[in-house]
């Protein structure tokens, strides 16, 4: 009897969570629709513009085909109904299902951004922690200057400089692209080929985030090192490595995880510049082109997918909080 009640309760909780998720997604979808449509411009006219000629009948036909001739609220209703049925619609410009377009580009973007993100997080927090532990030393000063420099370096400039050095001058790395086109590679060779293509875009993208996490971690470590519980640990005679790993790092990581969680979502959709410089076939370029073309279905589809990713990442961030700081679980309970 108790088991049944417990299962029912879990079921209710899951149902409530799903309802809340659907409601959030619908609100986001509505907000996206209003936002996207608030920008001036008519997709049919953009397409006509690109053709160098326009004809009233063809413009009307296009608007009818896209449903742009219908009242605004009807268009919004159609959009929300599609979202509920997981139908992202057709691209005006490319005349293909939006989901196909996104799924084609998403892997390349995830590969690039997640690698850069993990790299930045790992190296940034490690360097930041080391600098924080020797705060005030020459090494810390050098670290502070370098991280500031890295933070201030424009991403596109860094990308172009890397190309200039490693592709043009040294000829070590391919200047752009995702992989060698038309190459007859085995699976293993292909993986190495893609990795070779990834090096420069990943470094360019990771640089600024690495600087952010490093600086954040440094100040967080310095702050934590002055806390009472650290003094207590020292007074108790705990070994320094144990104090650092078990007490300082865990606590210092909380703000880093917060910022990283927020930035991870932005990273997925925000690699436009790097994708442009390195001709990387990712989602950023697709978004940029869809904005220019007023390709509403593609834009709305990308926004929706990104929203879902951000919601999922928030969930992951919450879980990580609880892993590194058990107090949060207790508080939540």
């Amino acid at each position: 009897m108790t088991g049944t009640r417990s299962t029912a309760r879990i079921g209710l909780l899951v149902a409530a969570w799903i309802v809340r998720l659907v409601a959030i997604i619908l609100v986001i979808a509505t907000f996206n629709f209003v936002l996207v449509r608030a920008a001036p411009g008519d997709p049919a006219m953009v397409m006509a513009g690109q053709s160098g000629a326009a004809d009233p009948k063809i413009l009307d036909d296009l608007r009818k085909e896209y449903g742009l001739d219908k009242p605004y609220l009807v268009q919004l209703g159609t959009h929300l109904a599609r979202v509920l049925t997981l139908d992202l619609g057709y691209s005006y410009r490319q005349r293909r299902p939006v989901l196909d377009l996104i799924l084609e580009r998403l892997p390349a973007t995830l590969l690039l951004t997640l690698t850069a993100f993990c790299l930045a997080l790992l190296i940034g927090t490690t360097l930041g922690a080391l600098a924080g532990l020797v705060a005030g030393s020459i090494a810390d000063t050098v670290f502070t200057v370098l991280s500031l420099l890295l933070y201030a370096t424009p991403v596109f400039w860094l990308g172009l400089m890397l190309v200039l050095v490693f592709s043009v001058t040294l000829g070590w790395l391919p200047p752009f692209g995702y992989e060698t086109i038309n190459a007859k590679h085995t699976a293993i060779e292909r993986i190495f080929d893609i990795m070779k293509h990834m090096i420069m875009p990943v470094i360019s993208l990771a640089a600024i985030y690495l600087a952010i996490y490093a600086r954040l971690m440094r100040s967080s470590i310095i702050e934590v090192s002055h806390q009472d519980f650290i003094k207590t640990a020292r007074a108790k005679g705990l070994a320094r490595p144990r104090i650092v790993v078990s007490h300082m790092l865990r606590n210092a990581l909380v703000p880093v995880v917060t910022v990283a969680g927020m930035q991870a979502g932005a990273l997925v959709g925000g690699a436009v510049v790097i994708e442009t410089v390195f001709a990387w076939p990712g989602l950023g370029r697709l978004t940029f082109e869809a904005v220019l073309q007023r390709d509403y279905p593609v834009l709305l589809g990308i926004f929706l997918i990104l929203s879902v990713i951000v919601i999922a990442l928030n969930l992951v961030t919450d879980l990580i909080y609880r892993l590194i700081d058990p107090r949060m679980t207790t508080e939540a309970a």
Partner: protein
Amino acid sequence: MNRREFTAAMLAASAAIPLGITRAAGQPKGGTLNTIIQPEPPILVTAFNQQQPTLTLGGKIYESLLKYGADLKPLPGMAQSWEVSPDGLTYTFKLFPGITFHDGKPMTSEDVVFSCMKVLTETHPRARQNFARVASAEAPDPLTVVFKLKQPFAPFLGCFDCTSAPIVPKHIYEGTEFRKNPMNDKAIGTGPFKLKEWVRGSHVHLVRHDGYYRKDQPYLDEIIYRIIPDSASRALALENGTVQLVQWSDVEFFDVQRFKSQKNLAYTTKGYEYFAPHQWLEMNNRVAPMNDKRFRQAVMHLIDRDAMNKRVYFGNAKVATGPISSKTKFYDPKVKRYDFSVEKAITLLDEMGLKPGANGKRAEIKYLVPPYGEVYQRAGEFFRQSFSKAGIDLVLVGTDMAGWADKVGNWDYEMTQNLLYQLGDPALGVARTYISSNIKKGILFSNTQGYSNPEVDRLFEEAAVALDEAKRQELYSKVQQILVEEVPVAWTLELEYPIIYDKAFKEIVTTGIGSHETFGSVYKS
């Protein structure tokens, strides 16, 4: 076309055929051409999208009945010969035998009639206007197409290049919603190259169409179009040999000079004769002070177009003298010239009563900067500097592509810059900007500035239907004189886009449509 000209055209056509066959012998086969496409086309079917990259790429996949030389005279395309009736109403085309689509099905006159009269009239704005003049189109036998016009239309023979009238397979499109046909992804044409693979955001891979009807062609095995969005990366790709050909604005104007001196590369501005990109400062003629002819004439005097060419376009242009490009038909150099003279401009402005106010300014005008790259921004700054010398304050307003199209198409602007192709004949590419019947709100690249002159309308209409070339020249000369006097727009430059390619590749530019050509005759030495 009179009888003498018709005979000459026939001789030219018959001469071109053996020439093609002679060339076919002995050219080395094989090789890959790597080039660039930017921005990435949305679709490869040129019947449904006429964006420049779509045409460059689609030109290898889709063909039409004719091609045009640098002199804009017709050459055989899929039609090996053609006849025009003396009254200029009936056009009969004879197709080459043995033409097949990429799916192996034969291409016949039925496909031509279906493409021109059913598909293009629904999906292709330019073709729709051209084929609206056709009373009937027939396919009496598989290799013959007959178009009968409602009334003579002199440039009708100029409407059959692969960008204006691409032929699509009837067996694939008949009875379907053309734009939504799932076979659009396959891009089935008759061209020398067929689509092998399109990795979106990365590249488009074309390979040889083995069933191509021209003997031994294509010579190349494959063409790879790389999608490289950043202009610095594109220049680098050409420099280090990753790509062997760039066209249109693949490389920025300021980069062209250094490639001219790169030893392994050839440079030409040929191959743009059909399009003849013509640029101008567009002024909304409905709005004061642009509604006064004297103001527009003053604008012509205020722009030092030689300096603009040197400083903004790095010499990749020629000064335009009027509405018709010197690269196209019926250009007349004997028109009024507006020299660069701030004094003359000030005299005109004073004459119309546009005197400087207390702040020294005569007028403040909003200039909508076209969102097509840095060069347009620089041109806007050049105009602002030029106009300031006469007390006209140009306020640059930025926008994106959709915003620009919306504002210009709906006449919600004061000044902007515009560029149109001349399309081989003033009746096809020039008249549309100046005739009153083309003042259509919401339609981009129409007479958006709102200029209207019944005499100009009459001259353009008469010239479009006159069959005698001398008569047409006379009419177009008159219209050029009137327009240059009235300055509906301030013509600035005839842009000379480059084609830069590795010297190992031959026959890159063979006609007036340059890089939009089929590339069937391109070979690697």
